């Protein structure tokens, strides 16, 4: 709660929607706000009545930048909304940043108005922020499935500390829930989450292999903005030039819709772009963002229909060519012309001395290619394509 625990000294609280965002149908805004109030009324004695004129306890509005209080909004991203604790005047009011893209869905392309409104109305009723990861009153936005949305027990404990439990129910913690969602929802994407208080639950049923397991193999490896990302199943190992320790993440932390893992990956650093391959499709991402129009079939790159999946890919930033490995052959894709080079595929062993087998994963760093085959790694000089040395696949993990 806020200092001195401000709360409404009555059970009938009024609200009024002063204006609408052009991002959504007015009916969808009305519904999102009503559902957000319903979430709180289902666990307290409070009743919320909508006014259409005059002064209401909770005035709801959309605005951007400076909007008449001391807390100007900051454009897209960053601060999404804010609300004031119960009191006269501005107390209870909730402001939403019109520079955000508001939506009734839970997709990457916008912020779900119901989720943000439910959080802000928590403030309007007197709740502060929670540091319990997964609680509605956690300060950071997390896209979640809003069908059957349930308040976290931490939220219920907080609001009932201010207003007590609902009249008709026994005084025990209740699970707030919403009636079955009527609007059709697009397929849910995993909630985007930062490093929570408790360790992220791993996506894959299998356990993450040990960093220094001598038999460790990888599905795909790529550089990304100066780091090296090693992929296996749904797991990621991150090697950063800025930090000594290896960071352990899951793919869903960065690209929830690609959580199943990859066959190959490569970075075109000049374009701040990473290409991921899985089966006969590929995606282009920039940071967290999956570029629109993906996935695409790998045949778009010029592969024959007989190629069903890619083993490995690595970009040579000097020649602007990308080598893509399938079985014992490889293709050369020209990133400038966006087409396969003539005279390919060629045998890997014919051009890369010492690499006499298939390639599971590959990346380039400091003028060398690193080819991975099983638990071994081969360092190859990019210019003369000659084998420099052989190492264990996890030599980058300082075992």
């Amino acid at each position, binding site marked *: 709660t806020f200092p001195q625990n401000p709360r409404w000294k009555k059970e009938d609280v009024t609200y009024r929607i002063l204006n609408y965002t052009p991002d959504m149908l007015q009916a969808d805004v009305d519904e999102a706000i009503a559902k957000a109030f319903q979430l709180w009324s289902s666990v307290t004695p409070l009743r919320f009545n909508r006014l259409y004129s005059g002064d209401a306890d909770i005035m709801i509005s959309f605005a951007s930048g400076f909007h008449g209080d001391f*807390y100007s909004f900051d454009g897209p*991203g960053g601060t999404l*909304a804010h609300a004031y604790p119960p009191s006269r005047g501005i107390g209870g009011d909730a402001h939403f940043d019109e520079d955000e893209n508001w939506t009734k869905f839970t997709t990457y392309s916008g912020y779900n108005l119901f989720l943000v409104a439910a959080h802000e109305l928590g403030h309007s009723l007197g709740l502060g922020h929670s*540091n319990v990861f997964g609680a509605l009153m956690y300060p950071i936005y997390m896209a979640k499935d809003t069908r059957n949305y349930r308040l976290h027990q931490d939220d219920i404990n907080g609001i009932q500390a201010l207003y007590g439990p609902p009249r008709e129910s026994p005084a025990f913690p209740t699970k707030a829930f919403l009636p079955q969602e009527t609007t059709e929802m697009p397929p849910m994407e995993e909630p985007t989450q930062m490093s929570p208080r408790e360790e992220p639950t791993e996506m894959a049923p299998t356990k993450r292999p040990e960093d220094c397991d001598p038999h460790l193999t990888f599905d795909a490896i790529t550089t990304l903005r100066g*780091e090296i990302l090693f992929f296996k199943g749904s797991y990621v190992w991150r090697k950063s030039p800025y930090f000594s320790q290896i960071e352990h993440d899951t793919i869903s932390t960065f690209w929830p819709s690609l959580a199943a893992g990859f066959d190959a990956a490569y970075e075109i650093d000049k374009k701040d772009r990473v290409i991921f391959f899985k089966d006969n499709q590929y995606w282009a991402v920039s940071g967290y963002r999956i570029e629109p129009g993906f996935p695409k079939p790998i045949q778009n790159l010029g592969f024959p229909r007989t190629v069903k999946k890619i083993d490995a890919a690595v970009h040579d930033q000097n020649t602007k060519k990308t080598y893509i490995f399938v079985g014992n052959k490889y293709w050369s894709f020209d990133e400038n012309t966006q087409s396969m080079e003539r005279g390919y595929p060629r045998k890997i062993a014919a051009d890369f001395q010492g690499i006499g087998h298939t390639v599971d994963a590959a990346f380039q760093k400091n003028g060398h290619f690193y080819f991975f085959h099983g638990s071994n790694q081969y360092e190859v000089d990019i210019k003369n394509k000659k084998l420099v040395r052989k190492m264990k696949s996890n030599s980058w993990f300082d075992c």
Partner: protein
Amino acid sequence: LPVAPETENEDMHFAQKYLENFYDFKEDKSSLFKSTNLAHMADKIREMQAFFGLEVTGELNRKTMDMMKQPRCGIPDVRSYS
């Protein structure tokens, strides 16, 4: 994910603004010593890291910057809300 390293100064400015907005950090303009403000800022970074369950180091490491850049509510996390 990492951001391009050349934005380190921007990060410091961004972090100071974030801590002013949400953790009641006030830069002591009168202080002749930059180190005083840096020490005070490190305290506020520790407070923010503790709130989010990050490793409490007082340093602006990547995870802390990532957390600061997440879309969020505009209400402070620290009680001195006025």
